[in-house]
């Protein structure tokens, strides 16, 4: 089946040390990349190189190491700016991950702007990270949270969106790609509609950034969030894109070093400009450097090539899995990323996960931090397999065989 791939996956896999591993006596079949992607040697070595040869705290240092470390760090900001086509490097804030990014928006823009009489809009598809920060803030401020519902196939319901937008929300928070159902939302169109009613738009891009070319200027969203660890980079790093004028207006989030202009007990403490205003304290330096290497790695392969490869895997896996009796796919949107959730009649997902693990196959089971989807669909969770640039057709075969075997045991 390899003929479908725009690059040689077997060669590519050699760059990922972990993919050689055995688990429970079987070669590892890692189908949990949506939870966290594995890292190529280039990323691992970039971090090591940094720590072994260039580490120093950044900014405000007059010594050479501090300058080099700062240049490395700011260089990744510029890289990321290009990668998502932001218009200015000042629009890229480094955070510790998507969750942190969304909490930043809720904690600064949200706390400063949302009042009791306001409404905000989320969708049924959101990850807890794009729900709970808003619920916590709503408890403090008293605004209403309205939810765009989904259709049976896991697509957002256009009518529901229209209804909710008619309520003139202050912000619409929507995932670019659902981590549970794989649904790719038309965020450009949603943004356009939201802007028409005067709402800001925050996009949770945690699952989109590893699989799609992101152009924040084309989407025209106000905020966009992502995590390095889902993009072949280190954990503990992520980004928030925000339109520059918005960032300038927003109050700071966390207080500490770097984010200030001048601190005083007697006069007013004043704050730095974006992005520094939002980056308090010593950042994850080696993580950011590793993230830079990850972006380079992705670009050297090409996101389009990655997407093409993943799409063939998705198609292949879907058709193969559907041959298993009683198996149904959860999430069958027309436009779908390489995440495949399924259930087998009468069998609990965690049982399948446990037995697959015995075969060295790593899938995720449960609600995938999207309980509202489970509530809506009336299911206890799903088994989720997710693909990345390094996934193979034979891994799909192993998955299908594994599920068949598990189902036989469990029935």
């Amino acid at each position: 089946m390899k003929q479908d791939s725009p690059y040689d996956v077997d060669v590519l896999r050699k760059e990922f040390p972990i993919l050689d591993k055995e688990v429970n006596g079987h070669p590892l079949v890692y189908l949990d990349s949506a939870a966290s992607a594995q890292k190529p040697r280039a990323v691992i070595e970039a971090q090591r190189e940094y720590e072994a040869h260039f580490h120093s705290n950044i900014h405000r240092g007059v010594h050479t190491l501090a300058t080099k470390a700062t240049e490395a760090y700011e260089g990744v900001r510029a890289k990321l700016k290009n990668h998502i086509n932001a218009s200015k490097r000042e629009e890229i804030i480094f955070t510790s991950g998507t969750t942190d990014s969304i909490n930043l928006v809720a904690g600064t823009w949200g706390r400063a702007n949302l009042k009791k009489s306001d409404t905000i809009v989320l969708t049924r598809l959101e990850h807890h990270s794009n729900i709970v920060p808003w619920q916590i803030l709503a408890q403090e401020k008293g605004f209403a949270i309205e939810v765009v519902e989904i259709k049976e196939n896991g697509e957002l319901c256009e009518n529901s969106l229209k209804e909710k937008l008619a309520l003139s929300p202050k912000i619409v928070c929507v995932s670019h790609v659902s981590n549970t159902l794989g649904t790719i939302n038309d965020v450009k169109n949603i943004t356009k509609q939201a802007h028409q009613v005067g709402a800001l738009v925050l996009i949770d891009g945690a699952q989109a950034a590893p699989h799609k070319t992101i152009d924040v200027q084309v989407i025209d969203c106000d905020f966009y969030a992502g995590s390095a660890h889902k993009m072949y980079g280190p954990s503990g790093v992520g980004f928030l894109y925000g339109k520059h004028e918005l960032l300038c207006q927003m109050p700071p989030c966390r207080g500490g070093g770097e984010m200030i202009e001048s601190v005083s007990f007697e006069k007013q403490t004043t704050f730095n400009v974006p992005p520094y205003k939002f980056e308090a304290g010593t950042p994850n330096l080696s993580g950011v450097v590793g993230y830079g290497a990850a972006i380079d790695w992705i670009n050297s392969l090409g996101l389009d090539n990655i997407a093409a490869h993943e799409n063939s895997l998705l198609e292949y896996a879907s058709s193969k899995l559907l041959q298993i009796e009683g198996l149904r796919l959860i999430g069958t949107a027309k436009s779908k990323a390489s995440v495949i959730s399924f259930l087998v009649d009468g069998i609990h997902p965690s049982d399948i996960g446990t037995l697959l693990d015995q075969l060295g196959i790593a899938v995720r089971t449960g609600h995938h931090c999207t309980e509202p989807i489970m509530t809506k669909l009336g299911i206890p969770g799903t088994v989720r397999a997710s693909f990345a640039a390094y996934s193979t057709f034979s891994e799909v075969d192993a998955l299908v065989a594994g599920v068949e075997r598990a189902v036989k045991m469990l029935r």
Partner: protein
Amino acid sequence: MHANNSLELRQGQIIEEFDMFPDWMEKYEHIIELGKELDPIAEADKIDDNLIKGCQSRVWLTASLNDEGNIIFFADSDAIITKGLVALMIRVLSDAKPREIASADLHFLEAIGLNAHLSPTRSNGLLSMVKQMKMYGLAYSAR
């Protein structure tokens, strides 16, 4: 002493029983079998109050004291492997003195190579269930 020994004995039997299954598949098939055979909990008891928190698969647990002062446990799970493991726990801990239960050293899961299921990192609720069973032991022995 004797009491603890009896929990020891029960664990020893299970270890012996699993010795017959060197292969993970047979082991899990046996667990699945045990799950299927477990006396079902009354539907009326499948309520949130009896639910063990923090689980991917859900576990319900109830306990009562019999005339001999032993605790009898009933439990259930919506996942069959969890249910099989629950059945093993019940075989060891049910119908025993509260004090024995509270102080039981449950080493059999390790011995049969399934202790990963008791890891706090699993979210099958088994560890929470064992804690809950011991809490019952403690609570009843305090009376």
